[in-house]
């Protein structure tokens, strides 16, 4: 918008005088702010309930649809999806190449698509490079493959420190990497979502995809840990 016909008659600085210029009949943000701050200390559960009831009364929210969508993220969409992607990449070299070159298509091929997964990038860990993902600005996260993010991923402690001192943050997760391993920290932007492809653990030769998937944890696909090592055979 900026720069387009800025010279027409915007000489009046009182937006209240021009309600017709506001196609959404927006109230001013100061008015919303004042209301929100005046009720900010009412218990949050009551405020959420009020918001749901008001939106339901106005026909903007169907409580049954709300239950259905939340159930999806509680019970169906989660890191098990991502683990299947990683296990396939470990087991099938052609799929690995596809995942690294065209992650959207390779992930969709296993049936995982949807919101917050539209622009995926797969980051492969190697013996010399370890990748870890953050969203410093908010909480961007690849929902179709990992579900909703854990509390620590959204915390100020993680968002502030992982970009500055990743080695010590990883150590807090029990991940101690050799000094020779380069750590690359990827800060999600509003569009791109990252999936770390952990190193395939030793001792997994001949394991099938289901057994491999059981070694792929959520945290290893964010990059704060490595994949699990299989239990030694009895």
């Amino acid at each position, binding site marked *: 918008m900026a720069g387009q016909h800025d010279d027409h008659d915007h000489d009046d600085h009182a937006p209240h005088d021009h309600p017709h210029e506001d196609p*959404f*009949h*927006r*109230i001013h*943000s100061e*008015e*919303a*702010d004042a*209301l*929100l*701050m005046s*009720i*900010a200390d*009412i218990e*949050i*559960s*009551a*405020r*959420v*309930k*009020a*918001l*749901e*009831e*008001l*939106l339901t009364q*106005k026909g*903007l*929210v*169907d409580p049954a*649809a*709300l239950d259905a*969508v*939340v159930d999806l*993220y*509680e019970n169906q969409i*989660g*890191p098990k999806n991502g683990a299947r992607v990683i296990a396939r990449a470990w087991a099938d070299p052609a799929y690995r190449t596809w995942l690294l070159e065209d992650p959207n298509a390779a992930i969709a091929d296993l049936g995982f698509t949807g919101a917050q997964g539209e622009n995926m990038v797969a980051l492969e860990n190697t013996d010399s490079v370890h990748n870890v993902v953050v969203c*410093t*600005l*908010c909480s961007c996260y690849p929902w179709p493959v990992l*579900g*909703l993010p*854990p*509390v*620590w991923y959204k*915390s*100020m*402690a993680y968002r*502030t*420190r992982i970009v*500055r001192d990743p080695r010590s*943050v990883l150590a*807090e*997760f029990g991940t101690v990497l050799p000094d020779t391993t380069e750590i690359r920290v990827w*800060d999600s932007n*509003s569009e791109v979502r990252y999936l770390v492809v952990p190193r395939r653990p030793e001792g997994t030769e001949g394991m099938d995809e289901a057994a491999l998937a059981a070694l792929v*944890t959520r*945290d290893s696909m964010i990059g704060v*840990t490595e994949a699990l090592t299989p239990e030694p055979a009895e």
Partner: protein
Amino acid sequence: MNSVHDCGGFDGFGRVVPEGYDGREPVFKEEWERRMCGLFMITIGAHYSDDEFRQSRERLEPVKYLTRPYYEQWWFAVARLMMEKGLLTPEDFARHLAAGRAAAGSADILAGDA
């Protein structure tokens, strides 16, 4: 917009505290978090965009941004957008919450707590 949300590199926020690794913790700790997340998922796309939501959260007053729980920040963000879009009015909110408090107050009186 530069504010506390743009926090990468800040010092002083302490250790990262995982609550239990690898998806063993519940997706939501409290029912209100579950409802709030659902309200967001039902209304985003239909009434506001991802970017509008993000910006609405970023406009939360900085002290509240730093001290209020994550899904409470979503409540502020969604409630603000609904008002700014004209879908809810401040009066709707005030009336509804006042009615709720009045009902709670009379319940207290009936219970002999007043």
